[in-house]
C-alpha cells in the first residue's frame, strides 16, 4: 500500500547552502547583465542566479540536460520561476561566465530580467486540453521567436508580462497581463439531444451559463440554447460534454492589453479588449504574432520609462491607444456584461484620438 498525504518534498532540502545560510537575510540585488541576478546578503555573501528560457513543455531528457548543467556549475541546485523560466543558482562567481557560455552553445536563451519580456505563461491548448479554441505552445513559440530580443535585453520602458490561455477558463493569469492572448470560440454549442439525457445533468448545465441562454427541456430530457444570448464561453460544454462548440472555421484568438498584478505605482488591474478576433493560422499564427509585436513596438516607442503597458494607455487615453496602434475600435469593445456601464465615459473629458 502506497503512502498517502506525504505532501511535496520539503523545500528546505532543496535550497543551496548559500541560501540556507542567508535565508531571510538578503540585503539587496543587482542585475549586472540581462538574465543574471546578483543577490547580496547581510553577511556579504552573494548568490548568482542565471535565468534561462524554457518551452515549458519539456521532455525528461531535456530536464536531465538541465540537471547536468546544474550539476556542473551549481552543485546541483536550480529552481523554476512562476513564469516557467529555469534559474541556475550559483555561489561561485567564477562559474557564471562558463555557465553562460555553455547555455549559449546549447541554445538556451538567457534573459527575462528587469525591463524585458519574460517567458509567456500559457496553457495546454491542443496538446492536452478538451476545451481549447486554439493551441498554446505553438503561438507562444512563434511569438517568442519574433520578440526574442526583448527577452535577452532590458530596453523596454518596463517589463511586459504576456500570457496565453486557450479558452475562457483561463488556466493562467491572462486576465491581468500587459498583453493577453486568449483563445475564443464564436459559434454556439451544438446540443446533441441523443447524448444529453445520458451524459449531462440538466440543472447544472442550465446553471453553468453566465447569460442565462440555456433552458431545460424536461420533456425531452435535454436543453435548448438561445443563440442570441450565447457568447460562446464554453462553460456549458465543461459540465455537459454533449454540447461541443469547437469550430475550426470560427475559433481563433483575441488580444487584451493593460493588465497587471503588481501593486507598484498603480493598482492591479484587468486586461482590456484590444482586438476581438484573429484567425487560427497554424503552425505560426502570423496575424497574432504581428498584432502582439505591433502593440509592443508602439508601447516601446511611446511609453515613458517605468510605465507598464496599462499605465501608458491610461496616461495617453484609450482613444490614443487605438489611433497609435492602428487597431480598429468596434462595438465589440464596448462592454455589455454585468457592470458594463462602469466603463462608459460619463464626462466630456476625452481626447480626439
Amino acid at each position, binding site marked *: *500500500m*502506497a*503512502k*498517502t*498525504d*506525504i*505532501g*511535496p*518534498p520539503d*523545500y528546505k*532540502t*532543496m*535550497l543551496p547552502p548559500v*541560501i540556507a545560510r542567508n535565508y*531571510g537575510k*538578503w540585503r*539587496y540585488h543587482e542585475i549586472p547583465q540581462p538574465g543574471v541576478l546578483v*543577490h547580496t546578503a547581510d553577511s556579504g555573501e552573494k548568490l548568482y542566479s542565471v535565468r534561462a528560457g*524554457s*518551452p*515549458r513543455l519539456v*521532455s*525528461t531528457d531535456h*530536464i536531465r540536460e538541465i*540537471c547536468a548543467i546544474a550539476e556542473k556549475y551549481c552543485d*546541483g*541546485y*536550480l*529552481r523554476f*520561476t*512562476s513564469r516557467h523560466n529555469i534559474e541556475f543558482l550559483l555561489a561561485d562567481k567564477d562559474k557564471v561566465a562558463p555557465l553562460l557560455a555553455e547555455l549559449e552553445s546549447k*541554445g538556451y536563451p538567457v534573459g527575462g530580467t528587469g525591463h524585458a519580456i519574460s517567458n509567456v*505563461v500559457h*496553457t495546454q491548448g*491542443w496538446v*492536452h*486540453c478538451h476545451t481549447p479554441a486554439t493551441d498554446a505552445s505553438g503561438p507562444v*513559440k*512563434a511569438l*517568442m*521567436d519574433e520578440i*526574442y530580443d526583448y527577452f535577452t535585453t532590458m530596453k523596454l520602458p518596463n517589463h511586459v508580462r504576456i500570457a496565453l490561455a486557450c479558452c475562457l477558463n483561463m488556466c493562467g*493569469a491572462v*486576465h491581468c497581463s500587459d498583453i493577453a492572448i486568449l483563445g475564443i470560440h464564436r459559434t454556439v454549442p451544438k446540443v446533441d439531444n441523443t447524448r444529453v439525457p445520458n451524459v449531462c445533468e440538466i440543472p447544472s448545465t442550465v*446553471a*453553468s451559463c*453566465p447569460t442565462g441562454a440555456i433552458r431545460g427541456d424536461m420533456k425531452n430530457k435535454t436543453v435548448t440554447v438561445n443563440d442570441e444570448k450565447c457568447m460562446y464561453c464554453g462553460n456549458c460544454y*465543461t*459540465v455537459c460534454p454533449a454540447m461541443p462548440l469547437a469550430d*475550426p472555421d470560427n*475559433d481563433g484568438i483575441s488580444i487584451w492589453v493593460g493588465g497587471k*498584478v*503588481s*501593486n507598484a*505605482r*498603480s493598482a492591479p488591474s484587468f486586461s482590456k479588449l484590444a482586438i476581438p478576433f484573429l484567425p487560427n493560422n*497554424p503552425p505560426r499564427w502570423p496575424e497574432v504574432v504581428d498584432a502582439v509585436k505591433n502593440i509592443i513596438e508602439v508601447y516601446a516607442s511611446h511609453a515613458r*520609462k*517605468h510605465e507598464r503597458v496599462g499605465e501608458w494607455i491610461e496616461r495617453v487615453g484609450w482613444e490614443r491607444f487605438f489611433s497609435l496602434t492602428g487597431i480598429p475600435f468596434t462595438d465589440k469593445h464596448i462592454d455589455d*456584461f454585468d457592470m458594463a456601464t462602469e466603463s462608459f465615459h460619463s464626462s466630456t473629458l476625452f481626447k480626439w484620438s
Partner: protein
Amino acid sequence: MAKRETPLLDQLERGKWPSFVKDMKEAAEKNPMAEDLLGQLELSYKDKIGHWKHGGIVGVKGYGSGVIGRYSDRPDLFPNVQAFHTMRVNHPTGWFYKTDALRRLCDVWDKHGSGLTNMHGSTGDAILLGTTTDHIQPCFDDLTEAGYDLGGSGSALRTPSACVGPGRCEWACVDSLDICYDITMTYQDKMHRPMFPYKFKIKVSGCPNDCVASIARADFAVIGTWKGDIRIDQGEVEAYAASGLDIQKEVCDLCPTKCMEWDGKRLKIDNGDCTRCMHCINLMSKALRQGGERGATILIGGKAPILQGALLSWVIVPFMKLEPPYEELKDLILRIQDWWDEYGKSRERLGELIKRLGMRVFLRAVGLPAVPQMVKAPRTNPYVFFWPEDIKKEVK
C-alpha cells in the same frame, strides 16, 4: 527520428526560442505515447481543432484529485494516446530543486508515462503529461517512494504556491515559502479529497510586487507588507543618483501618493501617506528598506472569468502578523471555507458567493470587523440593509 510525418509542427522547430516540438520529438524517439501525441497534435494543426475528449474519472486509491482523465477522440489513428491522463505532482515550494530529486521524478515518469512534462503548470504543480489508466496507481506508488505527492484538482484545495520569498528576495515581508509549505502540509486532506463547492486557491507573495499573481488568481491571497517608516540609507540614495538614476523624475514623480521629496542631497518620505506600492524600493533596493514591523495583508475572492466574470481579490484583513505555527491565519482559512462550504452553490467560487450574499454577511459570518481599508470608497447608492439589532423595537 520520429516515424510520423509532421510537416506543420516541423515549422515550429525553426527560430531561436526553444522549441516544444523538439522536446516532443525527443520523447517520441523512445516512447510510443509521445509519438502518437505528436501525430495527434499534427492532426490538430491540420484540422484547427483539439482532439481530446472530455475527461473521465480516474485516480489513485484514497484520493479524489491529482489525476486528470484524458482520452483521444481518434484512438483509431493514435491508439497509444487512447487514454492519456495527466498527473499533477505537487512541486517543492518555491520551485526549488536539487537535481537528484528532479532526476528521480524523470525516472518515475519514463517508467510510467510519456516522458513529457510541463515544468510547471499554471497553478504550480509539476505536470506529468499522459499515462494510461493501468499505470496511474503504480506511478503514484513510485512517486511517493521518490518523495513526491500529488497536487489538487477538481473541487478541492488546489496546490498552494508561493514566490521565492526569503529564499532569495530582500523584499520578503513574510516567510512565503514556509507559510505555503505549512499550509500545504496542514491541508493535505483538503487537497486530495475534494469536498468543496468548487476549487479553492491559496497563494502567498512576500511583498506587494506579488510575483505569484495571488491577487488575480487566488481565492485566498496572502501578500506581505509592513508597518513603520521606510528605512533610508542616504548615502546609497546619493550613490544611485550619481550612477544616473534621476531620483526626482523616476522615483519621486512616479510615487502614486507623492509622499517623497528629493532636494538633490536628501530623500524625505512622508510615511503616513505611503501606500507601500514598492516602486521606490524596487528602484533603489540598496538604499531603501521596508519598515520594521512585518506581516501580511489578506485578500480574498480573486478568480478568472468563469462563471460570473473575473474578480481581483478584496482586502479583508489589512495586517496580520504571520509567525509559525500560523494559527490565526489557518483559523481564518477554516472559518472562510466552512462558510463557503455551507452556503456556496455547486461551482460557485468564494468571490462569487460574497458577491451574491454581500460582504457584510460574509464579515459577520467569519467574525471580521468592517474597516475602511476594505473599500476604495463607501457606497454611493442608498440601498442600505440594517441588522435587526440596529432598529429600535416598538414598545407597546
